[in-house]
């Protein structure tokens, strides 16, 4: 789907934001891209959207190089949702906002209508189609930004810290939308996040960036299993994985608190009945 081949990127002379990054992203993956601020994760995601052109190396989307391409050329395949929802709202109603992308791409009006309907259904915003976007709650604005990206029917969705500043309930609402997209529609998700419990709960693959390079690439359970220098990468271990690591050594961490409790209760039952 996306191939990143030995990519370098420099913002200023001699300051490498990306250093020889190579990655392959397969269709249908749910990837969490993590690392401390300034580690290069946002730069990497921007290179995949042609928002930045690498100083060396190349990026292929569907086997085609992004060299010389603009984000608008990539937009039909890759969608990008930015951090601040307020800065990306361009229209007067929720429905128009979602229609903006396909309309800009010259999609036929009938088809635009269909896509808007579908995107709003998927993100749970169908009832708010005629609402003024700025009156929405923060969480709803975030989902609107996702819907607007979906209207272009991307097969990859890159989301830059879209759960920051949200409470657990809102966070779950937007993440469950992503999960459904990933499982039911096969959309590849690349989630840039600081929230480690989200990584454990939702991602199938975690990529850790540190000083412009990939420091870790593998299953989140393996990342939090205890043998990796999380502090050195500016990360923390989510509570569920930390407790599981201490109580269930050698086992993969359960995804969330409820799953962990289930495992623990099972174990207690077995211990009790065996003896």
């Amino acid at each position, binding site marked *: 789907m996306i191939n990143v081949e030995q990519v370098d990127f420099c913002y200023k002379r001699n300051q490498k934001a990306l250093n020889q990054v190579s990655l392959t992203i397969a269709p249908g993956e749910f990837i969490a891209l993590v690392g401390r601020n300034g580690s290069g994760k946002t730069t990497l995601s921007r290179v995949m959207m042609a928002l930045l052109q690498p100083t060396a190396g190349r990026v292929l989307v569907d086997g085609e190089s992004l060299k010389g391409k603009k984000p608008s050329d990539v937009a039909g395949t890759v969608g990008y949702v930015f951090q601040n929802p307020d800065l990306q709202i361009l229209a007067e109603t929720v429905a128009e906002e979602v229609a903006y992308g396909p309309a800009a791409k010259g999609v036929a009006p009938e088809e635009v209508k269909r896509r808007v309907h579908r995107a709003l259904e998927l993100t749970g915003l169908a009832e708010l189609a005629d609402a003024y976007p700025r009156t929405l709650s923060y969480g709803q604005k975030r989902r609107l930004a996702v819907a607007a990206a979906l209207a272009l029917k991307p097969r990859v969705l890159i989301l830059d810290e879209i759960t920051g500043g949200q409470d*657990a309930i809102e966070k779950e609402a937007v993440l469950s939308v992503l999960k459904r997209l990933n499982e039911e529609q096969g959309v590849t998700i690349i989630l840039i996040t600081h929230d480690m419990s989200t990584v454990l709960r939702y991602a199938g693959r975690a990529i850790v960036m540190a000083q412009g390079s990939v420091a870790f690439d593998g299953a989140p359970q393996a990342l939090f299993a205890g043998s990796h220098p999380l502090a050195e990468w500016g990360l*923390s271990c989510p509570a569920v994985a930390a*407790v599981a690591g201490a*109580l269930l050594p050698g086992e993969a961490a359960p995804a969330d608190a409820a799953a962990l*409790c289930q495992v*623990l209760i099972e174990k207690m039952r077995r211990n009790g009945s065996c003896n």
Partner: protein
Amino acid sequence: MNEAVVFECFSYAYPKTEPVLNEIEFVVPRGSFTVITGPSGAGKSTICRAMAGIVPNYYGGRSAGRVLVDGEDTAGQRIADLTRFVGLVLDDYESQLVSLTVEEEILFGLYNRGLAPAEALPAMRKALNEVGLTGKEKLRLDELSGGQRQRLAIASVLAYKPDVLVLDEAASALDPEGAESLYRMLDELRRDYNLTVIVVEHELAYVLPYATQMLAVVDGRVAACGALDEAFSALWTKPELRALVPDLWQIKFTMEAYLNRKLGEWRTAAEAAAALQTVLTKGETEEYDQRRTG
């Protein structure tokens, strides 16, 4: 006077809007570390603003009940006077910085309060030292990272030594490392200067090790309030609010329900693991099984 801030049945509506706070009743003891949480739009920011007297004094609007700061009603007091006691760091950490360089940002507030340079300069250096920005005095604001700007916003408030420090979503732009060190720093300040710390935070795992009490606000009303055990228990009994309980305490409540006994106040994953380890040992389980079958 042992209470820093007291909300007495306080209700408030901004001009031309529906009420955002309804009969808020809660007390912040001096020297406490209070966490305010709840969905966005629930009124958390308005509560912070009420403590600095911005609500109702700056915005107007309708209010009922009282907010007492240092024993005095905030209504009608000048905000500049109130900020000597309550320092507020706003949630938009970028736009609240008003100067061009780090040192000017801090000196600005000090000079406005009538300090002479001979007093202001040491106060500035001390505040920068407390937030770990020593040596960055001459830097321009756009040369700072998000985390450094956040720390500068805090330093500019700390510099005039308030008794109460209120931070509205101070960690939202920080990475886990930055958030952890921010809250560690706040707790140290609290211990060193008997500072009262009040923070708005969604990611309760960060503040769990330090919080002495919690306030959960939902739809402008107090949904849970008090010591951690009390407040989280109240949230846990309401299925629609369960998600607000941090993972560690979700584990605790689930296991408590299964074991039918209390498991202590967990602050860290290590504490939780230790407590569960003893439960997992054979003896406890047998005792439990006997109790269940017997």
